[in-house]
């Protein structure tokens, strides 16, 4: 088995990115940065420099240094991550262009001089003030969401669920008696629902939270084996197109990843486990493969 997950790689020079192969057909790459670990002012200036003028403007509009930093790191992470794959020999993160699809989902605007088809690379980012993540796939739509495990909410879990979640999900949460466990399950469910909506790419109103249920399917011995989505609007064939992973990152965050299954695969719609590789990075400085370490705990998937 080819191991493309090296332990820790330091950049050759202060402005280089360690190149990496595109994820394979059923593979997902996840890259994340912890803003608290990026303190070097000249490094942050370097990051600012690779952004487009518009992105720089957006970063500077954020109110407060912490918010500016995580906004900066979000754009930096997207640009440097995609640049690593050296598509069409393009290695400069600064030269990447982005656009939004018809529903507002960001995608790469590949600048090819000839008529070649754009590479089927897909990405999605999510950020909290304490962690910024970018997921990458090939040939498959992807949506990710990260949340702090212990994030506070102003409303009670159940009032929130009653307003936004489906009946089944409300029942699931209501059946949990321990309030702390209930809160954690709520956050997990939120990230899964967000990841699904982001994968669909139609925006919050394109797939209102109440119109679909995310639940844990149990196997023959009543163990939760799979996360599935049921939608009131979409027929079953379409919702079975999606698969989920739920992770605990760095002991502090839940990360949900939703990707498309491939109907064209020989196994059909049966759930084929996807390979997930996770890197913690400080772009231009160090990349650390954290799959299989304590930093990444798989909850489902």
């Amino acid at each position: 088995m080819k191991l493309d997950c090296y332990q820790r790689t330091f950049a050759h020079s202060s402005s280089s990115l360690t190149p990496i192969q595109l994820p394979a057909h059923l593979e997902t790459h996840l890259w994340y940065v912890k803003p608290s670990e990026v303190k070097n002012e000249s490094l942050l200036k370097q990051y600012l420099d690779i952004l487009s003028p518009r992105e720089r403007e957006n970063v500077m509009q954020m109110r407060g240094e912490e918010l500016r930093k995580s906004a900066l790191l979000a754009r930096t992470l997207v640009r440097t991550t995609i640049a690593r794959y050296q598509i069409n020999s393009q290695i400069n993160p600064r030269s990447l262009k982005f656009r939004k699809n018809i529903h507002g989902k960001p995608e790469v605007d590949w600048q090819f001089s000839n008529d070649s088809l754009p590479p089927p690379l897909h990405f999605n980012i999510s950020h909290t003030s304490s962690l910024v993540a970018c997921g990458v796939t090939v040939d498959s739509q992807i949506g990710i969401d990260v949340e702090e495990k212990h994030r506070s909410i102003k409303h009670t879990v159940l009032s929130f669920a009653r307003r936004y979640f489906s009946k089944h999900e409300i029942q699931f949460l209501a059946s949990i008696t321990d309030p702390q466990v209930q809160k954690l399950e709520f956050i997990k469910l939120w990230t899964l629902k967000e990841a699904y909506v982001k994968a669909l790419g139609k925006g919050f109103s394109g797939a209102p939270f109440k119109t679909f249920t995310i639940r844990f399917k149990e196997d023959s011995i009543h163990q939760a084996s799979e996360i599935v989505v049921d939608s009131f609007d979409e027929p079953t064939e379409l919702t079975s197109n999606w698969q989920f992973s739920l992770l605990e990152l760095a002991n502090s965050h839940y990360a949900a990843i939703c990707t498309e299954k491939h109907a064209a695969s020989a196994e059909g719609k049966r759930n084929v486990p996807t390979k997930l590789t996770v890197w913690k990075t400080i772009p231009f400085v160090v990349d650390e493969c954290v799959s299989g370490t304590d930093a990444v705990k798989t909850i489902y998937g």
Partner: protein
Amino acid sequence: MASISATFVGFGASVNLSVRTDNQIIGKSSSLVSFGLPRTGGFPSIRTSRLQICAAKPETLEKVSAIVRKQLALTPETELTPQTKFTELGADSLDTVEIVMGLEEEFDISVEEENSEIITTIQEAADLIDKLVEKKA
């Protein structure tokens, strides 16, 4: 000393202005700003730091600001204008839906999902709220 704040409506062709002082609307104009003299005498002091472009009532704007401040745990020093985007204040999607919930509770309205996406600033929230409240009446 009376203070006058000028309010404009929208960017569209028809510009409706109402100038108010001490909760009394004293005049409307369809051109740019025109100020009336306050009845209480003295020179009006005009809040020019931010000319507010809005259709919503000032009370609505204030209530929305208060809800946003609470939800995002903003420090009192954080200045809010009607054009302030929630995302600029660090609101993520969970914050935004909680803000919508807070607004629904405060104003006893119901915001459809399609509308929750267009609420990205204090202004937009206030405009929608006033519209929904008016519909209810």
